[in-house]
Every structure is written in C-alpha cells, then in structure tokens.
C-alpha cells in the first residue's frame, strides 16, 4: 500500500432506510470494481454472518477495500463500510460514519424518503460527511424518480437532480455511482507524517490472531512492530500485522498511513482492551488529544439471560464479552436468580437486537439459553426523593417506599394498507397507545402515528401486528419520553413460593388479565408432579389469579416384558433426560420452556 496517493482514496459508506437496497448496491460496487469476478460473487458478499443471510438484514458494519479505474484513467482505492439499516442499530451506523469522508444515500424510487432515510442522513451530516443521493429501484413499475428527487431536495435539503438513477438489483447504471464516488466524495485529509491517530470503529475476535482491530488512520503511519497505545484503556501492545479488508478476508500489508481504513492485530487476548471509539496512538510518540469518540448508546430493553445448563455460566460470560467487543450497545452484568441460578441481566437497543444476540449466542457459541421476560427501564420516584432506575423487577422497592413511577413511551409509525387500519388501531388501543394521527401515503396506504408505552411493544407486539395485518404492516419507533404511570410488580408463586425469574412490571390496569394468562400458560407448561402445585399471580401480597397443576397419580410401567430390560431402561433414560431440562425450584420441577412460554401471551388467544 505504500506509495498510494492519499488523493486517490475514497472512504465512504452507504446509508438508507431498511429495504431500500443498500446491501445490494454494496455488492454491485464490489463486483464492478473488479475485486472479485462475477463468478466469485456470492449474493450479498458483505453479509457474511449466516444469520444476516437468513434474515436479509445487515447486523454488523463491515468494511471492504476495492480498486476502481475511473474514467479519468486513474486508479482509486475505495474503502466501503457497510452499515445496518434498522433503528435498533443506529449506533452501528454512527461508528461506521466516523471512519468515512462521505456517504451514499440510497433512496427507493417508489417509496421515497422514509423515517430512517432522514435519521441516517442527519447522522451523516453530524459527522461532517459529504452526502450524495442515489435513486434505486428505478426499474420498478411504481418508481417515481422525479418525485423522489424533489422529495429529497425538499425534505432533506441536498442537491438531487443529477443523482444516479440505478437498479442495484439489475446492475443498471452502477458506473454512474462509481464516478460520483470519485467526484463527490472528498479524499481524506490528515498528515501521514504527523503523530499517529487512529479511530477504532469495530473489532472482531479471532481464536488465532486475538482481537482484530478495525480502524481508520487519521494521521501518521502504523506498521508491524509499532508499539501502540489505546488512549482510553491505556493498554500498550506491539503490532503484529496490519492490513486491509478484502471481501470477507483480511489482506496483510506493510504499512497503513493517514486516510486509510484497515486493521491491525497485536496478539490481544483481552477483548476489553480494545474499546470501539477509542483512539490508537504511537506509544513512543503519542498525539496530544484523542479523537472524539462515539456517542455512548444506551440500552432500552433488558432481560435476564441464563445458561440452561448451569455449568455453562463461564461460557456465556465469555460469549457475551466477545459479542460486546464489536457490539458496544450490548450491556450485561451478572445477576443471580433463585429459580435460574447464575446469569446476566442484559441490555439491548430493542427487541430485534435482543433477538439477534440471543440467536448468535445460541448458534455461534452453541449455548442453550433461558431468557426472562424483557422489560424496560422504569424510573421509580421514592418517597424520600430519590429516583432510581429499575431494569430487573426483583429490585423494585416496596410499594410503601414508592411515590410514583414513570415508564418510557415511544413514538411509533405503522405503515399499512388501508384495509387493516381498523384492526391495527384496535391493537394499539389495547396496548395503551395514544393516537397521534394518520396520513394517507397513497390511496391504499396509510401511516398511523401512535405514542406507545415501550413495555407494551416488547412482548409480542410485532407478532400481533404481523398476524392481524397478514404481514401488511411495517413498524418503526423511537424513544419519546418518560411518562408518569401506574405500574405494579406482578409476582408468580409456584407452590406458594415466589419465582423471581417470572416476576415482571406491568401497567396496573392490565395486571389482572396478564396474571390470569400467565397462570393458565404455566399450568400447561408445568408437568404434574407427585403433589398438587398451586400457581398464583400476586400483586404485593394479594393473590389475583390461581390455577392448579393436579398431583400426578400414576407414573408406572405396569408390565416389564420378559428379559428385555433395554426398553424399560430407555424409557427411564428419556424421563431422566427430561428432568435435566427442568429447573428444581423448592420441591417443584419447572421446565425451562415455562420461562420462555410466558413471553408470548398474545391478547387474541
């Protein structure tokens, strides 16, 4: 890489509303710039996590370096940094942006400017990036590129008349985008001979190389043997390898200098040493000031995560640590539950984030998890004037100490076809939504606006929305404010003992119904045992609902056939196997599925 003129580098990202075609455009750019031949192209090469491929969304930002021979006859290095589109992953976008000098804004020619288009553009402008728009999906019958161009200029206020008009899917006019990258995105500034300053924008753990640090070099040079210091953590390490990103692979090189995007390794075993947003400098010749880091992101949704097999606690901790390495928004701290043993209270940006972390833990780390009902952060104003945040229902103070409580509300936009407006409004009302108006986007499509309590949408709102609209609804939300609310802690007692992992905080008016459903569901989940088991829902000490699991009266193999022991034994082994998936709680065995099943209590059941 030595000798590459800084003027010939373009560091950029692509921002878009979900589904507007960002990943597809990234694929086309990589393809057209010839880093890979068409034959080597896999669909969506940037999305290399199995999970992303399946869900068709981009979870983690990834970087790739390609070479483009422009119409001016010069070769340009493109560093493309992919970003996620979903609202839950806003912070990832922010991280990626800090490493770039410009951004391509992809707008769907049919749908036009959407909520996330705006949010992402503002993020990009916040980072002083040069943004140019691209109109995608112009081959769609419903495409209205001219209207969309006007919309971009009117709503966002950036020049759009000469925006490339493309179809990323069909590879149409991709050349225009490549030329625009060269012409519109500035080359990186920064002094290659200055003091080393690099921004860590991501990292990854590799079992052989240790932590792989993704960075953008702002000033100076970094090469093998450089002793570098992480300015926030203070860790000092000697660089073992530097390089840049091929598609899905790391390509080592001699040196990286100001303006470049790449990685380094330094046999770093402790993932905590490399914090995303930290500044890397030369230990021998440090810079004066660290780069401004990223905005710290705060989780909205919390739940307890426990290993199904208690002995896997250490594995879960290691896995969370590794995931957090490149997912700074994931937070966790150890907690103990009487029912579930040792685990972690984990914080997430939203439900999708929670879902994805859970799946990654299960797939990539082969962990079997029990999660408790997700909750939000409640603010408890105590009678002594103190205000505390509650993320775990078990920490809720005694009602006598509570003056009042607040819960977070979000403003939500639900896009749907007009025929489902009625059912969706009903759903939002059931979830304590406050109607904020409706706009007709087209004759058959409308956008409903509601303020909703976050805790009403984190259980099964997506599922309910999907099933009631037959899939014809999309949903987006952002945090609005904390609102004073009547909330109570609902406890579940099994065999007269409170099961901490089943407690949750709920709106007072919904408590009776929720309690009743929980008891019903648990009754069906808990197998009959040698004695009768009462299942009760209680608020404070008051029982509001009760079901009974009847005592098991018969569990016997009447006939033990001749000398064939194996059949009988297999049966007992199976039974023992089943018991292992149970949590012993006092005298009662509770299957792990019971903790999960109560998460889904759709109101139409």
């Amino acid at each position, binding site marked *: 890489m030595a000798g590459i003129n800084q003027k010939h580098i373009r560091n950029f990202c692509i921002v878009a509303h979900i589904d507007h075609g960002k990943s597809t455009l990234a694929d086309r750019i990589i393809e057209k710039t010839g880093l890979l031949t068409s034959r080597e192209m896999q669909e969506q090469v940037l999305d290399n996590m199995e999970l992303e491929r399946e869900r068709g969304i981009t979870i983690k930002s990834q970087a790739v370096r390609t070479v483009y021979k422009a119409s001016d006859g010069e070769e340009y290095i493109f560093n493309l940094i992919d970003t996620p589109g979903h609202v839950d992953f806003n912070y990832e976008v922010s991280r990626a942006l800090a490493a770039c000098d410009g951004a391509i804004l992809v707008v769907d020619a049919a749908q036009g400017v959407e909520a996330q288009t705006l949010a992402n553009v503002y993020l990009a402008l916040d980072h002083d990036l040069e943004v140019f728009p691209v109109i995608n999906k112009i081959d769609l019958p419903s495409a209205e590129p001219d209207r969309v161009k006007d919309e971009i200029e009117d709503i966002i206020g950036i020049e759009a008349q000469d925006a490339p008009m493309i179809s990323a899917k069909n590879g149409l006019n991709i050349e225009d985008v490549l030329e625009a990258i060269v012409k519109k995105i500035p080359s990186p500034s920064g002094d290659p001979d200055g003091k080393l300053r690099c921004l860590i924008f991501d990292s990854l753990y590799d079992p052989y190389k240790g932590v792989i640090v993704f960075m953008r070099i702002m000033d100076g040079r970094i090469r093998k043997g450089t002793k570098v210091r992480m300015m926030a953590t203070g860790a000092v390490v000697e660089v073992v390898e530097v390089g840049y990103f091929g598609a899905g692979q790391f390509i080592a090189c001699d040196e990286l200098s100001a303006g470049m995007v790449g990685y380094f390794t330094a046999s770093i075993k402790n993932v905590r040493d490399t914090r995303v947003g930290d500044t890397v400098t030369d230990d021998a010749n440090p810079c004066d000031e660290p780069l401004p880091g990223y905005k710290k992101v705060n989780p909205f949704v919390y739940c307890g995560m426990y290993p199904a097999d208690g002995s896997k606690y250490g594995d879960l901790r290691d896995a969370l640590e590794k995931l957090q390495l490149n997912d700074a928004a994931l937070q966790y701290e150890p907690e103990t539950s009487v029912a579930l043993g040792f685990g972690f209270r984990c914080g997430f940006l939203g439900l999708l984030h929670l879902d994805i972390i859970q799946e990654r833990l299960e797939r990539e780390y082969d962990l079997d998890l029990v999660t408790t009902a997700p909750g939000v952060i409640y603010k408890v104003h105590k009678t002594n004037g103190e205000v505390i945040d509650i993320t775990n229902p078990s920490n809720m103070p005694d009602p006598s100490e509570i003056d009042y409580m607040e819960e977070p509300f979000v403003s939500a936009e639900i896009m749907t076809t007009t025929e489902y407006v009625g059912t969706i409004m009903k759903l939002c009302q059931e979830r304590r939504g406050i109607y904020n108006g409706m706009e007709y986007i087209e004759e058959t499509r409308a956008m409903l606006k509601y303020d909703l309590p976050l805790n009403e949408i984190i259980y099964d709102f997506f599922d309910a929305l999907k099933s009631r609209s037959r899939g014809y609804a999309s949903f987006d939300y952002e945090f609005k404010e904390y609102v004073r609310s009547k909330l109570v802690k609902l406890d579940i007692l099994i065999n007269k003992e409170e099961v901490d992992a089943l407690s949750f905080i709920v709106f007072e008016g919904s408590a009776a119904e929720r309690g009743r459903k929980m008891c019903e569901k648990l009754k069906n989940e808990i197998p009959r045992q*040698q004695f009768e088991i009462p299942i009760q829902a209680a608020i404070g000490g008051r029982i509001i609902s009760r079901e009974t699991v009847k005592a*098991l*009266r*018969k*569990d*016997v*193999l*009447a*006939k*033990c*056939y*001749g*000398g*064939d*022991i*194996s059949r*009988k*034994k297999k*049966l*007992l*082994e199976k*039974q*023992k*196997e089943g*018991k*292992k998936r149970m949590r012993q709680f006092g*005298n009662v065995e509770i299957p792990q599925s019971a903790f999960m099943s109560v998460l889904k209590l759709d109101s139409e059941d």
Partner: protein
Amino acid sequence: MEDREIYIHIPFCVKKCDYCDFLSFTSDDATKRTYVDALKREIRADFDRSVKICSVFIGGGTPSILDGDMIKEILDTVREGFELTPDCEITIECNPGTLDQNKAKIYKACGINRISLGLQACDVLVLKSIGRIHTFADFLKSYELVRELGFDNINVDLMSALPGQDLDAYLAGLKKVISLEPEHISAYSLILEDGTKMGDHIENYKKLPDEEEERQMYHKTIELMREYGYDRYEISNYCKPGYECRHNIGYWTMREYYGFGLGASGFIGGKRSKNTDSMEAYLKGELKKWEQETGEDLMEEFVFLGLRMCKGISLSKFKAFFGQDCDKIYKDVIDKHIAGGLLEKKGDRLALTEKGMDLSNLVMSDFIITV
C-alpha cells in the same frame, strides 16, 4: 456357578391383539416348523452341561399355538444341553382357544409345571373390542382342563383400564377369577403403545376409563387381592403364599438368563444379548448380539428392576455385587424420595412405598446416573 434361567420366545399368534406391541405375528405351518428347528439350533450352540437351570419360561406370542410335540422337542433340546434343577420352574404361556387336551397332556408329560393363561378380561364385549379371540367360557374350559390334568401352579393375566370397561364390571370379573383360586394373578393396567392398532387409533375405541376410575380399579385390585389371601409381591403381580413366579424374580434380582428365539434378550456374565427381530435373518442363523454392560449400567438395573418388587432391593446384596454402598452412591435420590414418601428403608431393604409404586417411574428414573 449360580443357577441360570432360560427364556424361549414363540412369536406366533392366531391374531394380533389391538394393544399388543410384543414381537408376534400370524404365520403358516411351514414357517413354524422351520422356526422350531432354528430355535433348537440356537439352543444347541449354547449347550453347557455345567450350567444349572432353575427356570424355563416359554413366552410369546402364543406358545400354545404350536403343536404339543414341538414344545416337547424344544424342552428335550434344553434338557439335552443343560442340567435342570429338580425343582425347576417350567412355565408356558397359553391363550384360551388354542389349548386342547392333547397339548396339555404333552406339556404335563414333558415336565411343564406352571401354566400362564392370558384371560385379560371377562366381559365378552370388552374382549372382542380389544381383538381377543376367546370368550370367558373358552378360558374356563382351558382352566378346568389344566386343573384336571393336575397342574397346581396356574397364573391368570388380567388387564384393567380397557376401553369400555367400568369399575364394577372389572371388579366382578376379578372376583370371578379369584373364585377359581389360581395360584397367581397378574393384573396390569392397559398401556397404550405407539405402533399398535389401539395406541395409534384410540379414537376408534370405546371410551377409556378416566383417571379417577382407572386409579380405583388399580387400588381396589390391591384391596380385593389382599382380602382373598393373595400377596402383592410386585407392581402388578399377586400370588398365594409361596407361588411367586421364580422366573420373573430372576429378572428383578439380576439372575443370569439365556434368551432364545426371535428378538429374545439374555443376560450372562455382565453382558446383555439380543437376537434379531427379523424372522428371515433369524431363520438364516443370524447370531445374537452381545453388549457389555458398564458397572453403572448394572447398578441402575439392579435398583430399578429390584424396586419393582414390593420387598425392594437388598442393600447388602448391592454392596456384595458392586463393592460400594447404595446409600452413598444414591444418597441424594434416596433422601429425596424418602422425604417425599415414595421410598422407605426397612433394615437391609430399600423399597417403594405404596404411593411410590404408583409413581415408580418417577423414582426409578432418578436412579439413572448415566444420563
């Protein structure tokens, strides 16, 4: 060397019963003949005159479907190769409707001293609905026939909780059987097994008794038997004093046994044997497969088989077998179930309580340590 037992499987029947998931099927005479020859070959391969046999059990299927002479051939073969103890218990399972005087006489002549009759139920409609081929009258004929020939150790198999059966009819039937004074009664609750006609399509049958009624049948059986002088010595087995089935007790106390015939299992020298379930392969002479049990396997089996008996397991025998204390290895499990009222310790013996008998699988599965 300790005495061993022999189990011989006859997989044929006139018609498969709807609830039956044993290895049995209908067959033609030629196959039966070839099968008996193959069986004799198999027994010969294990000949060992140094082994004493204290029990032979011919089970099925319906062994009484074979010609009486074939049974004789089989027992002659056994006698040729093994030494039978003077008091050797020799049982054959018979179904009413397949037994006649000629067969019974041959059984008597070749040393069979215990007859097990599969009655299952007394009500003719119930019998018919579960696919049995006989009536109570047929049973009575068979019963009287073997009694008259001097058989003084007879078992009757009965089932409860059958479709369409109610408590009163069941108890009336049980009393009818008791009045005949058989030495031994096996009383099982129906178990629906996958892969059987009844288990897969219970909706085609009359209503099963509900749990309450089923439990009443079960508990009234225990009471009634006690009242008429039958000891309950195992979960489903009752007998007049001194008439416990030696063969089954052998299984429950880890006595060694040969398993001959299609699909049969054996247990010799810490290894379990299993014959093929395929008639074709068996007739071609496929050899039984042997599997070595681990110490843990044997411990588990010692406990869960032994606990089937009302007197339970002997702790000193466990120690003699394994060189370790049962109380120590299974301390948590034993403590838990004693506290829960499902197990009890009486001197050297550890046994299920009456409630424990009802929930025996719950207790026994906790003794599985290899899972």
